[in-house]
């Protein structure tokens, strides 16, 4: 009897909290010792975390970085689960399932990649960028936030043609990797574009020649309205785009069909599970014309 290939692809671990750093507006960066998950995780995947005994249902959180035996997560307190999570201390353990979900597929025929992350949608873009270090010059990252970024923006040493001269703020970690990035916010943060991430995306694409556009693919994670705007940009420039979605989730392994989103296929609309059919979907299937 041949069993499905997916068997034993997700690990349950009691992950020790190595560090748990608070950033403005209740944003937290959580570093966990989770060697099995870390060894297999790929950009776009997430972990399903039990935040504490008081709330036994798990919460899905995207993976931001992996190390030898650890994973980094970024989350913002938005409800009871993340509130409970924020109260957990270094040295305690969190039970997690991971890595879960289909990662971002990388098309070798489109090696020029634009990554767009908004709010707590930034982590999958940072993870994806780290795996693209070898192709740093072909990768551009745009991050947006309406609260202070969970890192200190710095003027970038990397030039990005086509953008306003005043937009120089970048994520230092991405600069260290040789990957250009720029920041956007409506809040008027210094060095950041005062507007939407898609404004910067359009400016960057507008400056691209037809050959470059033919090599380009978009990747995005963030609020629904931002994803819809990214899908519109992709459609306007006839570019493929992959979006990472979220939805309330129960089992996290495909068993309950609780986390579905409507996906539009050539055969018509269908409900797909964010946990194992996604979380990454084609923009054209999430936001059809």
């Amino acid at each position, binding site marked *: *009897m041949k*069993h*499905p290939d*997916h*068997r*034993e*692809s*997700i*690990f*349950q671990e009691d992950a020790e909290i190595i560090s748990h750093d608070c950033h403005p507006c209740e944003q937290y960066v959580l570093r966990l010792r989770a060697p*099995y998950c870390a060894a297999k995780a790929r950009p776009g995947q997430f972990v399903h975390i*039990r935040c504490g005994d008081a*709330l*036994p*249902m*798990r919460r899905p959180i995207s993976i931001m970085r992996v190390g030898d035996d650890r994973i980094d997560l970024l989350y913002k307190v938005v409800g*009871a*689960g993340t509130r409970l999570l924020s109260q957990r201390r270094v040295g305690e353990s969190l*039970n997690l*399932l991971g890595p879960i979900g289909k990662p971002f597929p990388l098309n070798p025929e489109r090696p020029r990649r634009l990554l767009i992350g908004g709010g707590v949608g930034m982590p999958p873009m940072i993870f994806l960028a780290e795996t693209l270090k070898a192709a740093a010059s072909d990768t551009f990252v745009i991050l947006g936030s309406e609260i202070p970024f969970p890192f200190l923006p710095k003027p970038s040493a990397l030039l990005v043609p086509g953008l306003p001269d005043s937009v120089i703020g970048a994520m230092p970690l991405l600069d260290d990797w040789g990957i250009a990035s720029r920041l956007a916010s409506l809040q008027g943060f210094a060095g950041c574009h005062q507007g939407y991430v898609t404004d910067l995306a359009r400016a960057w694409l507008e400056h691209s020649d037809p050959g470059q556009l033919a090599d380009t693919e978009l990747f995005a994670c963030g609020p629904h309205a931002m994803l819809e705007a990214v899908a519109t940009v992709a459609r306007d420039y006839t570019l493929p785009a992959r979006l990472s979605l979220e*939805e*309330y*989730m*129960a*089992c*996290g*392994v*495909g*068993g*309950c*069909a*609780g*986390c*579905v*989103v*409507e996906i539009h296929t050539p055969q018509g*609309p*269908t*409900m797909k599970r964010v946990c*194992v059919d996604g979380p990454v979907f084609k923009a054209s299937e999430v936001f059809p014309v």
Partner: protein
Amino acid sequence: MTSDDIENATESSRLTSVFCGMTFGTPLVLLSGCVGFGEEYTRIQGFSNRDVGAVCLKGTTGEARAGNSPHRVYETPGGMLNAIGLQNPGVDAVVRQILPGLDFSETRFIANVSGSSIEEYIEVTRRFDDSPIDAIEINISCPNVKEGGVAFGNDPAMSARVVEACRKVTDKPLITKLSPNQTDIAVNARGCIEAGSDAFAVINTLMGMAVDIETRRPVIGNDQGGLSGPAIKPVALLKVHQVYQVCREHAIPIIGQGGVASAEDALEFIIAGASAVGLGTALFYDPLICRKINHGIERYLLRHGVETVSDLVGSLTLNRGRPFQCGC
């Protein structure tokens, strides 16, 4: 399932039982709607279908159904609401594409039949009768669809009609899943036995609601959903006890379910009259809980000198010496 497989599945034959003629390696049953079509949880390292007596597949209808709009799930104190809406690919796809991929040497697989009309229940049951499925559960208690489901289950006469119609088209074990959302579950059970039900699953979810006070809208896309989890365990336990009063004279077994999250919970259900114990929401808390519950039950049996789990079924001694009537 061979006897060797059963030995491998459990550390003790104390947990092995016979349910409607089927050998269950352990008294645990994974509940319909929680484990997809039987292979979803095997994604998790350490999880095995061998750790349970049976797996109930996702509710299946005659044609494919898209199910309800999001949000479909929401955590509530001691449990959760769900309103999936019977999303499934239709019985033809289940029989032709899904069942051939299931490993029947690992556990028993039970189909869950749903429909909007008696004709649909008959059609789906007939298709499963002509398949390798081990047993058929009739879902007359789904609270999350407009037609069928609990609309049948809340009316004892309609429940019996559905069971009778399905009975005519299958010789496989027929398990009726009863709703707690009805006046007298025992009356319904009696009618279903007379109509040909071989067993019961007690209970399905309780109807519930959650409100987002910022938007002043229900959280669940379907407005209302089914409440599950530890919060409903006392309700489920009483329903099992009540249905058992009807079942024991007919030797009809019960799958007791509703909020089971530990070996102690499972033992309560068995003592109250359940021959097997269903797990659903607890899997969301801990997907590797089955083995822990099996070991807990086994330790209890050893500690109390009980030979097999079957010997414990319905061993409840009432304080008042007679079946429960009213709490007042």
